[in-house]
Protein backbone atom coordinates (compact mmCIF):
# COMPACT_ATOMS: atom_id res chain seq x y z
CA UNK A 1 0.00 0.00 0.00
CA UNK A 2 1.24 3.42 -0.84
CA UNK A 3 2.18 5.33 2.26
CA UNK A 4 0.42 8.65 1.75
CA UNK A 5 1.50 9.97 5.09
CA UNK A 6 5.16 9.48 4.31
CA UNK A 7 4.62 10.95 0.86
CA UNK A 8 3.06 14.02 2.43
CA UNK A 9 6.00 14.42 4.75
CA UNK A 10 8.40 14.17 1.83
CA UNK A 11 6.46 16.77 -0.11
CA UNK A 12 6.32 19.28 2.72
CA UNK A 13 10.02 18.79 3.29
CA UNK A 14 10.68 19.23 -0.42
CA UNK A 15 8.70 22.44 -0.64
CA UNK A 16 10.41 24.03 2.35
CA UNK A 17 13.91 23.03 1.42
CA UNK A 18 13.20 23.98 -2.19
CA UNK A 19 12.28 27.50 -1.13
CA UNK A 20 15.54 27.68 0.77
CA UNK A 21 17.38 26.72 -2.40
CA UNK A 22 15.45 29.45 -4.19
CA UNK A 23 16.77 31.97 -1.73
CA UNK A 24 20.30 31.25 -2.85
CA UNK A 25 19.34 31.01 -6.50
CA UNK A 26 17.69 34.44 -6.37
CA UNK A 27 21.03 36.16 -5.98
CA UNK A 28 22.37 34.32 -8.96
CA UNK A 29 19.37 35.18 -11.10
CA UNK A 30 19.50 38.86 -10.17
CA UNK A 31 23.05 39.17 -11.37
CA UNK A 32 22.42 37.28 -14.55
CA UNK A 33 19.24 39.17 -15.30
CA UNK A 34 20.83 42.57 -15.03
CA UNK A 35 24.38 42.01 -16.17
CA UNK A 36 24.52 38.77 -18.13
CA UNK A 37 27.23 37.54 -15.78
CA UNK A 38 27.27 34.08 -14.28
CA UNK A 39 28.23 34.00 -10.67
CA UNK A 40 29.99 30.77 -9.82
CA UNK A 41 30.85 32.24 -6.45
CA UNK A 42 27.27 32.45 -5.25
CA UNK A 43 27.91 29.79 -2.62
CA UNK A 44 30.94 31.71 -1.41
CA UNK A 45 28.87 34.90 -1.19
CA UNK A 46 26.55 33.03 1.12
CA UNK A 47 29.50 31.71 3.08
CA UNK A 48 31.12 35.12 3.53
CA UNK A 49 27.83 36.64 4.62
CA UNK A 50 27.35 33.81 7.07
CA UNK A 51 30.85 34.37 8.41
CA UNK A 52 30.25 38.08 8.86
CA UNK A 53 27.09 37.58 10.85
CA UNK A 54 28.39 34.62 12.85
CA UNK A 55 31.60 36.42 13.74
CA UNK A 56 29.77 39.59 14.70
CA UNK A 57 27.45 37.56 16.92
CA UNK A 58 29.95 35.13 18.37
CA UNK A 59 33.24 36.94 18.54
CA UNK A 60 32.13 40.48 19.21
CA UNK A 61 28.89 39.67 20.95
CA UNK A 62 26.90 42.09 18.86
CA UNK A 63 23.12 42.00 19.19
CA UNK A 64 21.36 40.17 16.40
CA UNK A 65 19.95 43.24 14.68
CA UNK A 66 23.39 44.81 14.56
CA UNK A 67 25.05 41.67 13.27
CA UNK A 68 22.47 41.32 10.54
CA UNK A 69 22.83 44.98 9.72
CA UNK A 70 26.59 44.67 9.51
CA UNK A 71 26.23 41.61 7.31
CA UNK A 72 23.84 43.34 4.95
CA UNK A 73 25.87 46.54 4.77
CA UNK A 74 29.09 44.67 4.18
CA UNK A 75 27.58 42.55 1.44
CA UNK A 76 26.14 45.61 -0.29
CA UNK A 77 29.54 47.26 -0.22
CA UNK A 78 31.12 44.04 -1.37
CA UNK A 79 28.71 43.79 -4.30
CA UNK A 80 29.44 47.32 -5.48
CA UNK A 81 33.17 46.94 -5.01
CA UNK A 82 33.27 43.63 -6.81
CA UNK A 83 31.46 45.01 -9.82
CA UNK A 84 33.81 47.95 -9.98
CA UNK A 85 37.07 46.03 -9.64
CA UNK A 86 36.48 42.66 -11.27
CA UNK A 87 33.38 42.57 -13.40
CA UNK A 88 33.40 45.95 -15.10
CA UNK A 89 36.63 45.33 -17.01
CA UNK A 90 35.12 42.09 -18.26
CA UNK A 91 32.01 43.61 -19.85
CA UNK A 92 31.72 42.43 -23.41
CA UNK A 93 34.14 39.55 -22.99
CA UNK A 94 33.28 35.92 -23.74
CA UNK A 95 31.19 34.01 -21.27
CA UNK A 96 34.08 31.80 -20.21
CA UNK A 97 35.98 34.85 -18.98
CA UNK A 98 33.24 35.84 -16.57
CA UNK A 99 32.75 32.27 -15.44
CA UNK A 100 36.45 31.93 -14.71
CA UNK A 101 36.61 35.28 -12.96
CA UNK A 102 33.90 34.24 -10.55
CA UNK A 103 35.57 30.87 -10.10
CA UNK A 104 38.75 32.72 -9.24
CA UNK A 105 36.76 34.88 -6.89
CA UNK A 106 35.37 31.81 -5.19
CA UNK A 107 38.92 30.58 -4.52
CA UNK A 108 39.85 33.94 -3.06
CA UNK A 109 36.84 33.96 -0.78
CA UNK A 110 37.38 30.38 0.34
CA UNK A 111 40.91 31.25 1.31
CA UNK A 112 39.98 34.60 2.79
CA UNK A 113 37.19 33.48 5.11
CA UNK A 114 39.15 30.88 7.11
CA UNK A 115 42.33 32.97 7.04
CA UNK A 116 40.67 35.93 8.67
CA UNK A 117 38.04 34.32 10.82
CA UNK A 118 39.43 30.85 11.40
CA UNK A 119 38.46 27.55 9.85
CA UNK A 120 36.48 26.16 12.75
CA UNK A 121 32.73 25.87 12.50
CA UNK A 122 30.89 28.76 14.06
CA UNK A 123 27.32 28.50 15.20
CA UNK A 124 24.95 31.19 14.01
CA UNK A 125 22.21 31.11 16.61
CA UNK A 126 18.94 32.79 15.75
CA UNK A 127 16.39 33.47 18.43
CA UNK A 128 14.09 30.81 17.13
CA UNK A 129 13.56 27.36 18.50
CA UNK A 130 14.99 24.19 17.05
CA UNK A 131 11.91 22.25 18.07
CA UNK A 132 9.69 21.51 15.10
CA UNK A 133 6.32 23.13 14.86
CA UNK A 134 3.65 20.46 14.60
CA UNK A 135 0.89 21.18 12.10
CA UNK A 136 -1.45 18.25 12.17
CA UNK A 137 0.56 15.35 10.81
CA UNK A 138 3.42 17.56 9.60
CA UNK A 139 6.26 18.82 11.70
CA UNK A 140 8.19 21.71 10.35
CA UNK A 141 11.39 23.27 11.66
CA UNK A 142 11.03 27.01 12.27
CA UNK A 143 14.27 27.80 10.45
CA UNK A 144 12.87 26.34 7.24
CA UNK A 145 9.75 28.38 7.63
CA UNK A 146 11.90 31.44 8.07
CA UNK A 147 13.80 30.51 4.92
CA UNK A 148 10.60 29.99 2.97
CA UNK A 149 9.13 33.25 4.22
CA UNK A 150 12.25 35.23 3.35
CA UNK A 151 12.28 33.59 -0.06
CA UNK A 152 8.69 34.46 -0.80
CA UNK A 153 9.13 37.96 0.59
CA UNK A 154 12.00 38.54 -1.78
CA UNK A 155 9.96 37.15 -4.65
CA UNK A 156 7.25 39.67 -3.86
CA UNK A 157 9.70 42.50 -3.27
CA UNK A 158 11.65 41.90 -6.45
CA UNK A 159 8.43 41.34 -8.34
CA UNK A 160 7.25 44.77 -7.27
CA UNK A 161 10.65 46.30 -7.86
CA UNK A 162 11.00 45.09 -11.41
CA UNK A 163 7.43 45.61 -12.48
CA UNK A 164 6.51 48.85 -10.79
CA UNK A 165 9.46 50.90 -9.63
CA UNK A 166 11.30 53.17 -12.02
CA UNK A 167 14.67 51.82 -10.96
CA UNK A 168 13.44 48.32 -11.62
CA UNK A 169 12.20 49.27 -15.06
CA UNK A 170 15.52 50.92 -15.77
CA UNK A 171 17.30 47.77 -14.69
CA UNK A 172 15.18 45.69 -17.01
CA UNK A 173 15.91 48.16 -19.76
CA UNK A 174 19.63 47.71 -19.11
CA UNK A 175 19.25 43.96 -19.32
CA UNK A 176 17.25 44.27 -22.49
CA UNK A 177 19.65 46.47 -24.41
CA UNK A 178 22.64 48.06 -22.76
CA UNK A 179 23.46 50.50 -25.50
CA UNK A 180 19.98 51.88 -25.89
CA UNK A 181 19.67 52.12 -22.14
CA UNK A 182 22.83 54.18 -22.15
CA UNK A 183 21.41 56.44 -24.80
CA UNK A 184 18.40 57.01 -22.55
CA UNK A 185 20.67 58.47 -19.94
CA UNK A 186 20.72 55.37 -17.77
CA UNK A 187 24.03 54.92 -16.03
CA UNK A 188 24.48 51.28 -16.96
CA UNK A 189 27.51 50.68 -14.80
CA UNK A 190 25.73 51.94 -11.72
CA UNK A 191 22.92 49.52 -12.35
CA UNK A 192 25.38 46.68 -12.74
CA UNK A 193 26.78 47.62 -9.37
CA UNK A 194 23.28 47.81 -7.97
CA UNK A 195 22.51 44.32 -9.26
CA UNK A 196 25.59 42.90 -7.56
CA UNK A 197 24.71 44.72 -4.38
CA UNK A 198 21.19 43.29 -4.49
CA UNK A 199 22.69 39.85 -4.98
CA UNK A 200 24.80 40.63 -1.94
CA UNK A 201 21.68 41.37 0.10
CA UNK A 202 19.98 38.16 -0.94
CA UNK A 203 23.17 36.23 -0.23
CA UNK A 204 23.42 37.82 3.18
CA UNK A 205 19.96 36.60 4.11
CA UNK A 206 20.72 33.22 2.53
CA UNK A 207 23.89 33.10 4.60
CA UNK A 208 21.98 33.83 7.78
CA UNK A 209 19.31 31.21 7.17
CA UNK A 210 21.62 28.51 5.85
CA UNK A 211 24.35 29.41 8.32
CA UNK A 212 21.91 28.98 11.13
CA UNK A 213 20.92 25.61 9.71
CA UNK A 214 24.39 24.25 8.97
CA UNK A 215 26.79 26.28 11.07
CA UNK A 216 29.26 28.58 9.37
CA UNK A 217 32.50 27.35 7.89
CA UNK A 218 33.85 26.78 4.43
CA UNK A 219 31.44 23.93 3.79
CA UNK A 220 28.64 26.46 3.76
CA UNK A 221 29.79 27.44 0.28
CA UNK A 222 28.76 24.01 -0.94
CA UNK A 223 25.12 25.06 -1.01
CA UNK A 224 26.14 27.05 -4.09
CA UNK A 225 26.17 23.88 -6.14
CA UNK A 226 22.46 23.50 -5.58
CA UNK A 227 21.91 26.71 -7.49
CA UNK A 228 22.63 25.42 -10.97
CA UNK A 229 19.80 22.96 -11.46
CA UNK A 230 17.47 25.44 -9.81
CA UNK A 231 18.28 28.32 -12.11
CA UNK A 232 18.59 26.24 -15.25
CA UNK A 233 15.23 24.62 -14.68
CA UNK A 234 13.57 27.91 -13.93
CA UNK A 235 15.39 30.01 -16.48
CA UNK A 236 18.46 32.05 -15.69
CA UNK A 237 16.79 35.42 -15.89
CA UNK A 238 13.49 34.73 -14.26
CA UNK A 239 12.74 35.46 -10.63
CA UNK A 240 9.55 33.40 -10.48
CA UNK A 241 11.64 30.77 -12.28
CA UNK A 242 14.10 30.70 -9.39
CA UNK A 243 11.26 29.99 -6.98
CA UNK A 244 9.67 27.38 -9.22
CA UNK A 245 13.06 25.79 -9.97
CA UNK A 246 13.77 25.61 -6.25
CA UNK A 247 10.47 23.90 -5.62
CA UNK A 248 11.04 21.42 -8.44
CA UNK A 249 14.52 20.58 -7.21
CA UNK A 250 13.35 20.25 -3.62
CA UNK A 251 10.52 17.92 -4.60
CA UNK A 252 12.57 15.86 -7.05
CA UNK A 253 15.31 15.39 -4.49
CA UNK A 254 12.89 14.15 -1.90
CA UNK A 255 11.09 11.83 -4.27
CA UNK A 256 14.42 10.46 -5.49
CA UNK A 257 15.68 9.91 -1.96
CA UNK A 258 12.41 8.42 -0.78
CA UNK A 259 11.54 6.15 -3.67
CA UNK A 260 14.58 5.59 -5.89
CA UNK A 261 17.41 5.43 -3.36
CA UNK A 262 16.19 2.25 -1.63
CA UNK A 263 16.40 0.43 -4.96
CA UNK A 264 19.73 1.60 -6.32
CA UNK A 265 21.79 1.97 -3.17
CA UNK A 266 21.49 5.67 -2.64
CA UNK A 267 22.83 8.97 -3.75
CA UNK A 268 20.34 9.68 -6.53
CA UNK A 269 19.20 12.78 -4.70
CA UNK A 270 22.24 14.67 -5.83
CA UNK A 271 22.11 14.09 -9.52
CA UNK A 272 18.39 13.56 -10.14
CA UNK A 273 17.88 17.32 -10.45
CA UNK A 274 20.82 17.56 -12.82
CA UNK A 275 19.43 14.77 -14.96
CA UNK A 276 16.08 16.48 -15.05
CA UNK A 277 17.88 19.67 -15.92
CA UNK A 278 19.58 18.14 -18.94
CA UNK A 279 16.31 16.74 -20.21
CA UNK A 280 14.66 20.11 -19.70
CA UNK A 281 17.50 21.82 -21.55
CA UNK A 282 17.17 19.55 -24.53
CA UNK A 283 13.48 20.41 -24.75
CA UNK A 284 13.68 24.06 -23.80
CA UNK A 285 17.24 25.33 -24.12
CA UNK A 286 16.44 28.44 -22.11
CA UNK A 287 14.69 26.97 -19.09
CA UNK A 288 11.03 27.02 -18.24
CA UNK A 289 10.70 30.76 -17.79
CA UNK A 290 13.88 31.94 -19.48
CA UNK A 291 13.72 34.23 -22.46
CA UNK A 292 15.42 33.04 -25.60
CA UNK A 293 17.98 35.20 -27.29
CA UNK A 294 17.95 35.68 -31.03
CA UNK A 295 21.16 35.10 -32.87
CA UNK A 296 21.97 36.65 -36.19
CA UNK A 297 24.96 36.25 -38.40
Amino acid at each position, binding site marked *: MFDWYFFGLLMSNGILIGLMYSLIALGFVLVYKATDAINFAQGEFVMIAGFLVAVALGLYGAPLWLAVGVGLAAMIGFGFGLERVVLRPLIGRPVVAVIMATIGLSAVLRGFGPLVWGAETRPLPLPISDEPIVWGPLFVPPIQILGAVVSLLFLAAFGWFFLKS*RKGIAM*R*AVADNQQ*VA*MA*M*GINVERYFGLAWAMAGVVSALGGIVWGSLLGVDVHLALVGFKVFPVVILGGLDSIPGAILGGLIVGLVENVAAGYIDPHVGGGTKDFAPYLLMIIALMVRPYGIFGKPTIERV
Partner: protein
Amino acid sequence: MLALNNIEVIYDGVILVLKGVSVTVREGGITTLLGANGAGKTTTLKAISGLLRSERGEVTKGSVEFSGERIDGRPPHEIVKRGIVQIFEGRRVFEHLTTEENLIAGAHIQTSRQRVQEGIERVYAYFPPLKERRTVQAGYLSGGEQQMLVIGRALMSHPRVMLLDEPSLGLAPMLVEEIFEIVQRLNREERLTVLLVEQNATLALAIADHGYVMENGRIVLDGTADALKENADIKEFYLGLTEVGARKSYRDVKHYKRRKRWLS
Protein backbone atom coordinates in the same frame (compact mmCIF):
# COMPACT_ATOMS: atom_id res chain seq x y z
CA MET B 1 24.57 75.53 -30.38
CA LEU B 2 26.07 72.10 -31.07
CA ALA B 3 29.36 72.08 -32.87
CA LEU B 4 31.78 69.36 -33.92
CA ASN B 5 35.19 70.81 -34.58
CA ASN B 6 37.36 68.72 -36.81
CA ILE B 7 36.87 65.48 -34.87
CA GLU B 8 38.66 62.23 -35.52
CA VAL B 9 37.29 58.92 -34.27
CA ILE B 10 39.24 55.71 -33.88
CA TYR B 11 37.77 52.31 -33.02
CA ASP B 12 39.76 49.72 -31.08
CA GLY B 13 42.80 51.94 -31.23
CA VAL B 14 43.35 51.07 -34.90
CA ILE B 15 40.41 51.76 -37.21
CA LEU B 16 40.14 55.39 -38.23
CA VAL B 17 36.51 56.10 -39.00
CA LEU B 18 36.04 59.84 -38.90
CA LYS B 19 38.85 61.82 -40.43
CA GLY B 20 38.21 65.35 -39.35
CA VAL B 21 34.52 66.12 -39.34
CA SER B 22 33.09 69.53 -38.58
CA VAL B 23 29.36 70.00 -38.26
CA THR B 24 27.37 72.83 -36.74
CA VAL B 25 23.80 72.36 -35.61
CA ARG B 26 21.82 75.58 -35.25
CA GLU B 27 19.45 75.99 -32.38
CA GLY B 28 15.81 75.42 -33.25
CA GLY B 29 16.58 74.14 -36.69
CA ILE B 30 16.63 70.81 -38.46
CA THR B 31 20.03 69.89 -39.74
CA THR B 32 20.45 66.81 -41.86
CA LEU B 33 23.44 64.59 -42.43
CA LEU B 34 23.33 62.67 -45.70
CA GLY B 35 25.56 59.95 -46.93
CA ALA B 36 25.81 56.37 -48.09
CA ASN B 37 26.20 53.31 -45.92
CA GLY B 38 29.44 53.30 -43.99
CA ALA B 39 30.10 56.98 -44.54
CA GLY B 40 30.37 57.57 -40.80
CA LYS B 41 27.03 59.23 -40.10
CA THR B 42 26.07 57.04 -37.18
CA THR B 43 29.57 57.29 -35.76
CA THR B 44 29.22 61.05 -35.85
CA LEU B 45 26.04 60.82 -33.80
CA LYS B 46 27.67 58.48 -31.32
CA ALA B 47 30.59 60.83 -30.99
CA ILE B 48 28.12 63.47 -29.87
CA SER B 49 26.08 61.28 -27.52
CA GLY B 50 29.11 59.67 -25.90
CA LEU B 51 28.13 56.15 -26.89
CA LEU B 52 31.36 55.52 -28.74
CA ARG B 53 32.91 54.28 -25.54
CA SER B 54 30.61 51.28 -25.31
CA GLU B 55 31.95 50.20 -28.71
CA ARG B 56 35.59 50.75 -27.86
CA GLY B 57 35.79 53.87 -29.96
CA GLU B 58 37.07 57.27 -28.94
CA VAL B 59 37.37 60.82 -30.14
CA THR B 60 41.09 61.30 -30.57
CA LYS B 61 41.23 64.76 -32.09
CA GLY B 62 39.01 67.77 -32.25
CA SER B 63 36.22 68.68 -29.89
CA VAL B 64 32.47 68.50 -29.50
CA GLU B 65 30.90 71.58 -28.00
CA PHE B 66 27.40 72.06 -26.74
CA SER B 67 26.25 75.50 -25.64
CA GLY B 68 29.84 76.54 -25.42
CA GLU B 69 30.99 73.60 -23.26
CA ARG B 70 33.09 70.68 -24.35
CA ILE B 71 31.19 67.44 -24.05
CA ASP B 72 33.45 64.95 -25.80
CA GLY B 73 34.70 62.27 -23.43
CA ARG B 74 31.68 62.72 -21.14
CA PRO B 75 29.70 59.58 -20.24
CA PRO B 76 26.40 59.21 -22.13
CA HIS B 77 24.14 59.64 -19.13
CA GLU B 78 25.64 63.04 -18.47
CA ILE B 79 25.13 64.11 -22.05
CA VAL B 80 21.49 63.08 -21.87
CA LYS B 81 21.16 65.23 -18.78
CA ARG B 82 22.53 68.19 -20.72
CA GLY B 83 19.72 67.73 -23.21
CA ILE B 84 21.04 65.68 -26.09
CA VAL B 85 19.35 62.40 -26.84
CA GLN B 86 20.15 59.94 -29.59
CA ILE B 87 17.65 57.73 -31.33
CA PHE B 88 19.15 54.67 -32.93
CA GLU B 89 18.29 53.43 -36.34
CA GLY B 90 16.39 50.18 -36.58
CA ARG B 91 13.74 50.99 -33.94
CA ARG B 92 15.60 49.58 -30.96
CA VAL B 93 12.82 49.37 -28.40
CA PHE B 94 13.24 47.46 -25.13
CA GLU B 95 11.49 44.41 -26.50
CA HIS B 96 10.60 42.79 -23.20
CA LEU B 97 9.17 45.95 -21.67
CA THR B 98 5.71 47.29 -22.35
CA THR B 99 5.12 50.49 -24.27
CA GLU B 100 4.59 52.48 -21.12
CA GLU B 101 7.58 50.94 -19.37
CA ASN B 102 9.68 51.93 -22.37
CA LEU B 103 8.56 55.49 -21.87
CA ILE B 104 9.30 55.34 -18.15
CA ALA B 105 12.75 54.01 -18.86
CA GLY B 106 13.22 56.89 -21.29
CA ALA B 107 12.46 59.35 -18.52
CA HIS B 108 15.24 57.98 -16.38
CA ILE B 109 16.95 61.31 -15.78
CA GLN B 110 13.67 62.89 -14.70
CA THR B 111 13.50 63.06 -10.93
CA SER B 112 9.89 64.03 -10.42
CA ARG B 113 7.16 61.46 -10.83
CA GLN B 114 4.78 64.24 -11.82
CA ARG B 115 6.92 65.26 -14.78
CA VAL B 116 7.16 61.66 -15.92
CA GLN B 117 3.38 61.38 -15.97
CA GLU B 118 3.11 64.64 -17.91
CA GLY B 119 5.74 63.41 -20.31
CA ILE B 120 3.83 60.26 -21.00
CA GLU B 121 0.68 62.23 -21.71
CA ARG B 122 2.59 64.51 -24.06
CA VAL B 123 3.94 61.53 -25.99
CA TYR B 124 0.48 60.02 -26.24
CA ALA B 125 -0.74 63.33 -27.58
CA TYR B 126 1.81 63.32 -30.35
CA PHE B 127 1.48 59.59 -31.03
CA PRO B 128 -2.11 58.54 -30.32
CA PRO B 129 -1.59 54.93 -31.51
CA LEU B 130 0.79 54.33 -28.62
CA LYS B 131 -1.86 55.07 -26.07
CA GLU B 132 -3.99 52.22 -27.30
CA ARG B 133 -1.08 49.82 -26.97
CA ARG B 134 0.36 51.02 -23.70
CA THR B 135 0.37 47.59 -22.02
CA VAL B 136 1.67 45.59 -24.98
CA GLN B 137 5.23 44.30 -24.94
CA ALA B 138 7.16 46.58 -27.24
CA GLY B 139 8.58 43.64 -29.17
CA TYR B 140 5.10 42.96 -30.52
CA LEU B 141 4.38 46.47 -31.80
CA SER B 142 4.31 47.11 -35.52
CA GLY B 143 7.28 48.79 -37.19
CA GLY B 144 5.61 52.18 -37.36
CA GLU B 145 4.51 52.00 -33.75
CA GLN B 146 8.01 51.05 -32.69
CA GLN B 147 9.43 54.05 -34.54
CA MET B 148 6.92 56.27 -32.80
CA LEU B 149 7.82 54.68 -29.51
CA VAL B 150 11.55 55.30 -29.84
CA ILE B 151 10.93 58.95 -30.72
CA GLY B 152 8.44 59.26 -27.90
CA ARG B 153 10.83 57.57 -25.51
CA ALA B 154 13.52 60.07 -26.46
CA LEU B 155 11.12 62.95 -25.82
CA MET B 156 10.64 61.71 -22.27
CA SER B 157 13.95 63.21 -21.23
CA HIS B 158 12.81 66.64 -22.47
CA PRO B 159 15.80 67.03 -24.75
CA ARG B 160 16.94 70.22 -26.41
CA VAL B 161 18.63 68.38 -29.24
CA MET B 162 17.45 65.15 -30.79
CA LEU B 163 19.87 63.05 -32.83
CA LEU B 164 17.62 61.06 -35.13
CA ASP B 165 19.18 58.17 -37.00
CA GLU B 166 17.38 57.01 -40.16
CA PRO B 167 13.79 57.03 -39.02
CA SER B 168 12.65 56.04 -42.51
CA LEU B 169 14.52 52.74 -42.56
CA GLY B 170 12.24 49.87 -43.49
CA LEU B 171 8.95 51.71 -43.08
CA ALA B 172 6.07 52.17 -45.52
CA PRO B 173 6.20 55.56 -47.30
CA MET B 174 2.98 56.71 -45.70
CA LEU B 175 4.29 56.04 -42.24
CA VAL B 176 7.56 57.74 -43.08
CA GLU B 177 5.69 60.87 -44.09
CA GLU B 178 3.66 60.77 -40.91
CA ILE B 179 6.79 60.49 -38.80
CA PHE B 180 8.54 63.27 -40.63
CA GLU B 181 5.52 65.45 -40.10
CA ILE B 182 5.65 64.80 -36.41
CA VAL B 183 9.35 65.59 -36.34
CA GLN B 184 8.59 68.88 -38.03
CA ARG B 185 5.82 69.59 -35.54
CA LEU B 186 8.15 68.83 -32.65
CA ASN B 187 10.67 71.19 -34.15
CA ARG B 188 8.14 73.95 -34.50
CA GLU B 189 6.01 73.49 -31.38
CA GLU B 190 8.62 72.38 -28.88
CA ARG B 191 11.56 74.35 -30.29
CA LEU B 192 13.37 71.03 -30.55
CA THR B 193 16.64 71.10 -32.41
CA VAL B 194 17.07 68.08 -34.64
CA LEU B 195 20.09 66.50 -36.25
CA LEU B 196 18.67 64.08 -38.76
CA VAL B 197 20.70 61.36 -40.39
CA GLU B 198 19.11 60.07 -43.54
CA GLN B 199 19.71 58.17 -46.73
CA ASN B 200 16.43 59.36 -48.13
CA ALA B 201 17.67 62.77 -49.16
CA THR B 202 14.42 63.93 -50.77
CA LEU B 203 12.54 63.67 -47.53
CA ALA B 204 15.34 64.93 -45.38
CA LEU B 205 16.01 68.01 -47.45
CA ALA B 206 12.28 68.70 -47.55
CA ILE B 207 12.13 69.36 -43.84
CA ALA B 208 15.70 70.44 -43.10
CA ASP B 209 17.10 73.94 -43.15
CA HIS B 210 20.71 72.92 -43.50
CA GLY B 211 22.49 69.83 -44.74
CA TYR B 212 25.83 68.09 -44.77
CA VAL B 213 26.98 65.27 -47.04
CA MET B 214 29.41 62.67 -45.73
CA GLU B 215 31.56 60.23 -47.56
CA ASN B 216 34.27 57.99 -46.18
CA GLY B 217 34.46 59.72 -42.87
CA ARG B 218 34.60 63.25 -44.22
CA ILE B 219 32.16 66.01 -44.91
CA VAL B 220 32.25 66.52 -48.64
CA LEU B 221 29.53 69.10 -49.08
CA ASP B 222 27.49 71.40 -46.97
CA GLY B 223 24.99 74.17 -47.44
CA THR B 224 21.43 75.20 -46.91
CA ALA B 225 18.84 72.64 -47.81
CA ASP B 226 17.77 74.65 -50.82
CA ALA B 227 21.31 74.99 -52.09
CA LEU B 228 21.92 71.28 -51.70
CA LYS B 229 18.72 70.44 -53.55
CA GLU B 230 20.10 72.35 -56.50
CA ASN B 231 23.56 70.75 -56.38
CA ALA B 232 24.14 68.61 -59.43
CA ASP B 233 25.91 65.78 -57.66
CA ILE B 234 23.28 65.60 -54.96
CA LYS B 235 20.60 65.57 -57.57
CA GLU B 236 22.25 62.77 -59.38
CA PHE B 237 23.37 60.52 -56.57
CA TYR B 238 20.99 61.24 -53.71
CA LEU B 239 17.84 62.51 -55.28
CA GLY B 240 17.92 60.17 -58.24
CA LEU B 241 17.46 62.98 -60.74
CA THR B 242 19.52 63.45 -63.82
CA GLU B 243 19.59 66.51 -65.97
CA VAL B 244 16.37 66.47 -67.78
CA GLY B 245 16.35 64.00 -70.61
CA ALA B 246 20.09 63.70 -70.81
CA ARG B 247 21.63 60.26 -71.03
CA LYS B 248 24.33 59.54 -68.61
CA SER B 249 27.65 59.02 -70.13
CA TYR B 250 30.39 56.90 -68.71
CA ARG B 251 32.62 59.95 -68.59
CA ASP B 252 30.36 61.65 -66.07
CA VAL B 253 30.58 58.74 -63.76
CA LYS B 254 34.31 58.82 -64.00
CA HIS B 255 34.20 62.49 -63.31
CA TYR B 256 32.28 61.86 -60.11
CA LYS B 257 34.60 59.11 -59.02
CA ARG B 258 37.55 61.34 -59.60
CA ARG B 259 35.90 64.02 -57.61
CA LYS B 260 35.22 61.55 -54.85
CA ARG B 261 38.79 60.39 -54.77
CA TRP B 262 40.02 63.93 -54.67
CA LEU B 263 37.75 64.73 -51.79
CA SER B 264 38.80 61.82 -49.72
